[in-house]
């Protein structure tokens, strides 16, 4: 959105293609009209930023080719393949800025496919977009700032979380403090959420190892180990997540080069500080090129637009450009702090864990295939086991599958590959295909 605004201001014409029905992305998501609530209630401390962004959008809406509810499901050279209310269409472009965002990163736990178990991001979407709680006594498991933020937001909305089960170690969080001081306001907010949860007597278990989630009567019971002891916590829903990972499939389809990023144990599209990818006409902004959060995404959007303008021979305001670059550098340092505080660790997974929930492939099936076929690369694994071949295209299992493959073979995590994106990037709605007239 910030990118679009910057391009329009420079006199360029642009299209804004958004999968969501209303502008705002995930963080500043707007609920449907009938579920409108005060901004303070929806976005908490970020209400002012949310309102500013929504206002910017309403100013540019009439001067931009805006296409809500529209999925970019593929690309062919300089054409995007779209599916939306207007049916399936194509859109030619000179330059494209990808702001495809991120989604939760998951460590599968036996029972994570049960109804009532959601990703942390999902729990947040349900609250923000639908004014619903996934449960009144949810158990939140995983790690990362979102774990505490979602629990806090649920408390504010009237839930009483049964527990927070954090797989990270508290000492790691202390050790990361120097880096986290690069964004003191954000760090302070994190500390505030934690304090608020303590004040509400939400039990927090750190260094926990989740074992399983079971349905017992109406309850969802989470079993985890901590210091050798086994604990059971019952609730009426589960939210789980281990930080975020970028949505990079479209960048892949557009031919962008990727590099392995050790801190996040994930492959990221290679970009310069302005957001230029390795493909000449493709730019990437926001979490899509590495998780840096919503504030940085606004800066990155504007910078990517500056990059487009520079490459088209326009001059861009240098002071502004430098300020934005400094902002992103701070966000980058903060991210490295978060990676230390809440490391993504995939423990030894139980054999009966469903790794790929689309295709119901278990960890032991994957392990058996790896050893009998001597698999060392993730797409081989996918072809031979169907792990990652389902409708989500490995968005949920890909990260854990990489870890299982690396652990089984002894191959470095950086060298086991990643699940290739395929078009259509997401399933299409059949009714949007135009029927050809009979000859």
């Amino acid at each position, binding site marked *: 959105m910030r990118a679009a605004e910057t391009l329009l201001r420079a006199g360029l014409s642009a299209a804004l293609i958004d*999968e969501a*029905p209303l502008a705002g992305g*995930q963080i500043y998501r707007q*609920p*449907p*009209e*009938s*579920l409108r*609530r005060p901004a303070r209630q929806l976005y908490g401390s970020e209400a002012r930023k949310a309102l500013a962004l929504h206002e910017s959008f309403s100013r540019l809406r009439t001067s931009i080719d805006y296409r809500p509810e529209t999925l970019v499901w593929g690309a062919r050279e300089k054409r995007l393949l779209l599916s939306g209310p207007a049916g399936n269409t194509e859109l030619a472009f000179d330059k494209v800025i990808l702001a495809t965002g991120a*989604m*939760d990163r998951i460590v599968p736990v036996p029972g*994570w*496919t*049960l*109804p*009532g*178990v*959601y*990703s942390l*991001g*999902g*729990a947040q*979407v*349900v*609250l923000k*977009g*639908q*004014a*619903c*709680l*996934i*449960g*009144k006594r949810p158990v939140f498991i995983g790690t990362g700032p979102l774990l505490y933020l979602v629990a806090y937001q649920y408390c504010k*909305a*009237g839930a009483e979380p049964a527990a927070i089960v954090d797989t990270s170690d508290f000492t790691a969080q202390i050790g990361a403090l120097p880096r986290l001081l690069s964004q003191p306001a954000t760090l302070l907010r994190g500390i505030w959420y934690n304090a608020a949860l303590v004040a509400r007597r939400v039990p927090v278990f750190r260094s926990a190892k989740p074992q399983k989630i079971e349905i017992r009567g*109406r309850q969802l019971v989470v079993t985890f180990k901590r210091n050798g002891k086994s604990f059971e916590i019952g609730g*009426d*829903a589960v939210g789980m997540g281990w930080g975020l990972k970028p*949505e990079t499939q479209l960048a892949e389809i557009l031919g962008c080069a990727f590099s392995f990023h050790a801190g996040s144990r994930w492959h990221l599209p290679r970009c310069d500080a302005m957001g230029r990818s390795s493909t000449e006409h493709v730019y990437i902004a926001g979490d899509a090129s590495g998780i840096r959060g919503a504030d940085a995404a606004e800066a990155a959007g504007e910078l990517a637009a500056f990059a487009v303008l520079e490459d088209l021979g326009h001059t861009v305001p240098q002071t502004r450009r430098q300020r934005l670059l400094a902002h992103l550098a701070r966000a980058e340092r903060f991210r490295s702090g978060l990676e230390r505080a809440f490391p993504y660790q995939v423990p030894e997974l139980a054999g009966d864990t469903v790794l790929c*929930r*689309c*295709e*119901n492939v278990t960890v032991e099936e994957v392990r058996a295939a790896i050893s009998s076929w001597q698999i060392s690369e993730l797409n081989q694994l996918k072809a031979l086991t169907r792990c990652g071949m*389902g*409708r*989500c295209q490995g*968005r*949920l299992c890909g990260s854990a599958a990489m870890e299982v493959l690396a652990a089984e073979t002894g191959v470095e995590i950086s060298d086991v590959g990643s699940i290739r994106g395929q078009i259509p990037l*997401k*399933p299409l*709605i*059949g*009714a949007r295909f135009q029927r050809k007239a009979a000859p």
Partner: protein
Amino acid sequence: MYSPRFHSISENDRQKLTLLVDGVSVEAREGDTLLTALMRHDGWVRTHEFDAGSRAGFCAMGACQDCWVTLADGQRLRACTTPVRSGMAIVRKPAINV
């Protein structure tokens, strides 16, 4: 086996809509997604293709594709990103057994 999940925090004057779920008339509210309507009704969304397990989505943001439902006319829709419309008929059973 399953009970309603999802608790609304703004029970309000939103317009009521009726949909059919497995032939049963179910009340939803204007602005609900199909996912919300199904979760508030009886707490599950679909039967998995490869086992008898019930699923109810996971990501709620159109990424995991674990909440696709079939309408009586054969059309398939993703529950978490589809707003409920009056008269929608969802057929969750029988599962497509493979």
